[in-house]
């Protein structure tokens, strides 16, 4: 059932474009990227890379941690632990 739903989702995603980026997001990502901050996307859903491509902002992300890479969902520390430049040993990450 989930696979069928995802097929429907993919159809909608194929029609997305940059106009759907929420206000200010592209500029903020750009400014972080421009000053060397590592941008990381932590999102369990597996369509994230495709969505970023459709929005045209994939190149602003250094790492995408999605359902293909981690098993445990937020707030598991497995998402931040895979983002670069955070610098915390995994044992020091806790849920909020």
């Amino acid at each position, binding site marked *: 059932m989930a696979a069928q*739903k995802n097929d*429907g989702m993919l159809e909608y995603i194929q029609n997305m474009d940059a106009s*759907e980026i*929420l206000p200010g997001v592209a500029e903020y990502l750009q400014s972080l990227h421009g000053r060397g901050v*590592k941008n990381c*996307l932590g999102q369990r859903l597996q369509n994230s890379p495709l*969505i970023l491509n459709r929005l045209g*902002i994939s190149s602003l992300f250094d790492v995408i941690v999605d359902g293909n890479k981690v098993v445990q969902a937020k707030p598991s520390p497995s998402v931040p632990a895979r983002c670069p430049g955070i610098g915390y040993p995994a044992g020091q990450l*806790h849920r909020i």
Partner: protein
Amino acid sequence: MVLALFLSGGCYPLEAKSANWEYYEPRTEHGSTLSACSYSLIAAQIGKVDWAYQYFMKTATIDLTGEGKEYVGTLYIGGTHPAANGGAWMSAVLGIVWHHRAAIIPSPLLRACRPLDAGDASTRFPTDKSCASGFPAESLTVQVVGTPASAPVCSVAGVPQPLPQTGELRILFGTGTPGMIREMRAAIFDLDGVIVDTAKYHYLAWKRLANQSGFDFNEADNERLKGVSRVVEILLDRCPACR
């Protein structure tokens, strides 16, 4: 909004902080455990020390009173709240102490606070509040030694809070930089509702699938799905014959 006003505090005048705090405070559910410390910090900045103290108490006792939100629908979100506990430290040191030069005195119930007297405190406060870094550059050291004798000036909801009357009081808030990020090295973004709103597509996709299977799926059902991974179970609830 209120948290953002604290994090980028140097960028906005007190009037803006005050206006936003007063607008959002009565309209906010404070469902996030990080809400109380944010409201405490800004309350301290805009001169509402009673409110700062009240929200400090909320964040400081979050794991003691057991009054926190434990469930969203059927999803368990309880547990301990180390980030909110850190927020209590920030509310005390960077909020009440920094802005009001008042000491929070840890009586057994964390009930009282009073201003620091010149004779019993040595203070060094951060000086760099620049917009560029947004965070204090210098260390903060507060030491209070002595027996508190003066009447408390802090109150909660208008009721003065008693001070411990005997014994030596020694509070050392530590040295070094306050526990805040000086330089951002990485940023982690959520996707849904942060970068783009995909919720409507999820809803449409679920609805189409449900309709194809011969049952309804409305917006109320959809609300139950938000942030939840047990989607299939909720859908099956709507379709007992499918079980």
